């Protein structure tokens, strides 16, 4: 295999060598690693903020956090989890896996790839530093509705705006790179309809990113000019409308929630067939379902705004269009279940997380369906029911998806097997804790507890205490996850190149750990059975 030896320059101090390796790299695996560690780091930072929130809500009254600080925690927790944890986490997986899955030597535009990554640490430094500024960090919730973020936002809001611009540049460039890689660098013979589903879901995700991140950039630009340059986009006194902000934001925001989950669909579709030892049921319908979800996602942003006084016709249209999304999503869930049906199932940690994903994501999907009903939403809007809903799709959805992917491919990345006993412990504590944290929030919301408020009335005390205890457990289990990952990187049973006995795909034909450069010469496709027989 022709290997370009770019890191083997002798006579340099280890620090310089380390910095030049990680700062200047163009290698998709190294950049993937950078993304994943950034995501992991921010996961603990935003997780610590969640702990502050749950600590404060442990009992009624104001214990630990002043209301203003509580609002900052809620805002920063949401922003960092969405833009700093889930998105970079999935991009990290894309970097590691896409070239290996399609038999490409690297991403199509490797320098651009490094640029996309290195913008992010600066963007998040800018965002997080706002916590230490005069007037405090942004405190208007992750949706930064006008006029809270325009007329009433603290000065640090402008750092937030520029931070969002940087993240947007990073996401758009990263997405372009992914689309071009998938369209251009597939191995001979891998037609679109033969691509692994993780590749398909990322293709659609990248398309959504290119379409909506610029709209977000437009939204924050209008905020900036409303704040400082006298425009009145979001001010009725000048003929604008605060609700316009919500339209622009959710035009971005709704496709964004699919950006946060579609790669997770792809991961489940890779993992479940391996451990059910069957081919994925309904490959074509999976692809069409993903495409339909993406198209519908552009038509339903209004369901976040039922209580703003939209015309009735618009509310009805959005309601039915939203409910329509349940059809392709249902197809997916059905296909995963049908893949498991009568399979020779085993329950290694990645499979456990994947099954947890399917079941709990479905619960989150159903509560979404409840929220889609206009008359019901008038009740649920801005209550903890909404919090319960999107945490079910994001935590056991997106985050469990990333975790199951990490367990599944970590042996490929590091060459070592993770500790199965600890992995199972991680899963079972996580799944108990996640339900303990978020399930009571459904009841709290239905009973009328509003979200984003530092204090609550006495009748909500019991469920809040349960949720807080669950949240503490959930936080601790992720420390265990960190330990498992580090332990695997440092050693463990050697992984074979195929790792899992019936795993399919080009990434399982190369040695574990995957060498820095793979597929400099294109592999054979369809994959001959003997390609898996290295060791």
């Amino acid at each position, binding site marked *: 295999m022709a290997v370009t030896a770019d890191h083997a320059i002798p006579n340099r101090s280890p620090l310089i060598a380390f910095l030049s390796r990680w700062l200047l790299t*163009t290698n998709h695996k190294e950049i993937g690693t950078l993304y994943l560690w950034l995501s992991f780091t921010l996961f603990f930072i935003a997780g610590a903020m969640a702990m502050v929130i749950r600590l404060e809500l442990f009992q009624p009254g104001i214990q630990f956090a002043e209301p203003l600080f509580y609002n900052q925690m809620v805002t920063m927790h949401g922003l960092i989890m969405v833009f700093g944890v889930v998105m970079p986490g999935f991009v990290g997986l894309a970097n590691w896996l896409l070239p290996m899955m399609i038999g490409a030597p*690297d991403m199509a535009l490797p320098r651009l790839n490094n640029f996309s990554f290195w913008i992010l640490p600066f963007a998040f430094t800018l965002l997080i530093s706002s916590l230490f500024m005069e007037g405090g960090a942004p405190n208007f919730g992750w949706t930064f509705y006008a006029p809270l973020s325009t007329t009433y936002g603290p*000065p640090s809001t402008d750092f937030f705006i520029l931070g969002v611009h940087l993240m947007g540049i990073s996401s758009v460039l990263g997405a372009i790179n992914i689309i071009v890689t998938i369209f251009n660098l597939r191995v001979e013979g891998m037609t679109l309809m033969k691509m692994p589903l993780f590749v398909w879901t990322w293709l659609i995700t990248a398309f959504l990113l290119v379409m909506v991140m610029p709209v977000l950039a437009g939204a924050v630009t209008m905020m900036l000019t409303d704040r400082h340059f006298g*425009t009145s986009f979001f001010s009725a006194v*000048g003929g604008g409308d605060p609700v316009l902000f919500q339209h622009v934001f959710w035009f971005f925001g709704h496709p964004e929630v699919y950006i946060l989950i579609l790669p997770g669909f792809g991961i489940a579709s890779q993992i479940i067939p391996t451990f059910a030892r069957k081919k994925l049921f309904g490959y074509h319908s999976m692809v069409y379902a993903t495409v339909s979800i993406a198209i519908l996602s552009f038509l339903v942003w209004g369901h976040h705004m039922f209580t703003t006084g939209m015309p009735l016709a618009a509310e009805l249209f959005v309601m039915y269009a939203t409910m329509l999304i349940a059809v392709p999503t249902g197809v997916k869930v059905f296909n995963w279940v049908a893949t498991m049906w009568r399979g020779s199932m085993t329950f290694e940690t990645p499979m456990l997380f994947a099954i947890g994903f399917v079941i709990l994501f479905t619960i989150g999907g159903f509560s979404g369906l409840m929220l889609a009903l206009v008359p019901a939403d008038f009740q649920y809007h801005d209550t903890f029911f909404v919090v319960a809903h999107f945490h079910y799709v994001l935590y056991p959805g997106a985050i469990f998806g990333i975790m199951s992917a990490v367990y599944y491919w970590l042996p490929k990345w590091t060459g070592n097997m993770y500790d199965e006993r600890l992995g199972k412990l991680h899963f079972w504590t996580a799944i108990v804790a996640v339900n303990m944290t978020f399930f009571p929030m459904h009841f709290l919301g239905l009973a009328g507890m509003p979200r984003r408020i530092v204090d609550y009335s006495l009748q909500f005390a019991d469920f809040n205490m349960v949720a807080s205890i669950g949240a503490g457990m959930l936080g601790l289990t992720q420390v265990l996850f960190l330990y498992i990952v580090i332990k695997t990187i440092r050693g463990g049973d050697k992984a074979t190149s195929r790792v899992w006995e019936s795993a399919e795909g080009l990434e399982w034909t190369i040695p574990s750990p995957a060498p820095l450069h793979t597929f400099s010469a294109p592999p054979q496709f369809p994959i001959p059975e003997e390609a898996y027989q290295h060791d």
Partner: protein
Amino acid sequence: METPRYYVPHSSPWPIVGSVALAVTAYGAVNFIHQSTEKVGAEGSWGQPVFFIGLAMVAFMMFGWFGTVIRESIRGMNSELMDRSYRQGMGWFIVSEIMFFAAFFGALFYARIISVPWLAGAGNNLETHVLLWPDFADIWPLFMTPGGTATEAMEAWGLPFINTVILVTSSVTVTFAHWALKKNQRILLPIWLAITVALGTTFLTLQVIEYRDAYTELGLTMGSGIYGSTFFLLTGFHGAHVTMGTIMLAVMLLRSLRGHFSAENHFAFEAVSWYWHFVDVVWLFLFTFVYWF
């Protein structure tokens, strides 16, 4: 079957230079704004120089990065496949730019179809009208905001129309330059390019004059309600794109004089001309919906 080798570049300093440059620009920009609007806790005046240093760093990064890519192209390191990656990449970049403008067009249409009529009592919003601003009338362009800020409208058939003609003509001349390049007419190529650059510069000059008239004679400013907001953000971002496009065209002119392009291999030129057509089309929408109707 011979599979084309794909060139994977070695480590490169430009991405990290670019990231630092963007961060410096962003940090400088916010402090610049805060210091010039005298926000609390924003003493000093260092924001402005930091912002411009950041921009200079961005320019330095682009210069260095594109220089590297050009050298690779001249050495023939780019396979046909690489060429396709660049082409598709540029195409998707333009898609993202279209969506950026879509946000502002969305705001314009929302104001014209929804918020302004509603404030004037359309639909079931009579109470809003009567209780908040009973004197407000739904007339577009918005001569009088609900709060009472007055402005005059920008006439479409003066400078804006001349600018439309200029920009459409420049789209034609850049295509003539492309044809000249494809036919290997080495004299005509820089001439048509120079004409295009001149048209772009003229457009920008007229735009500056138009803005001056708006501020001094019409009272049309960023502060004159939603009409001024959409007017200046749409035309302003378009103008920024024309500026970028003109600079890119000027670079293409210099490169064509140095003999960088061949009749077969000139993707950079094509990318710039795509970009130029894109700005042109955006202008046609602007002319129609901002100035004309």
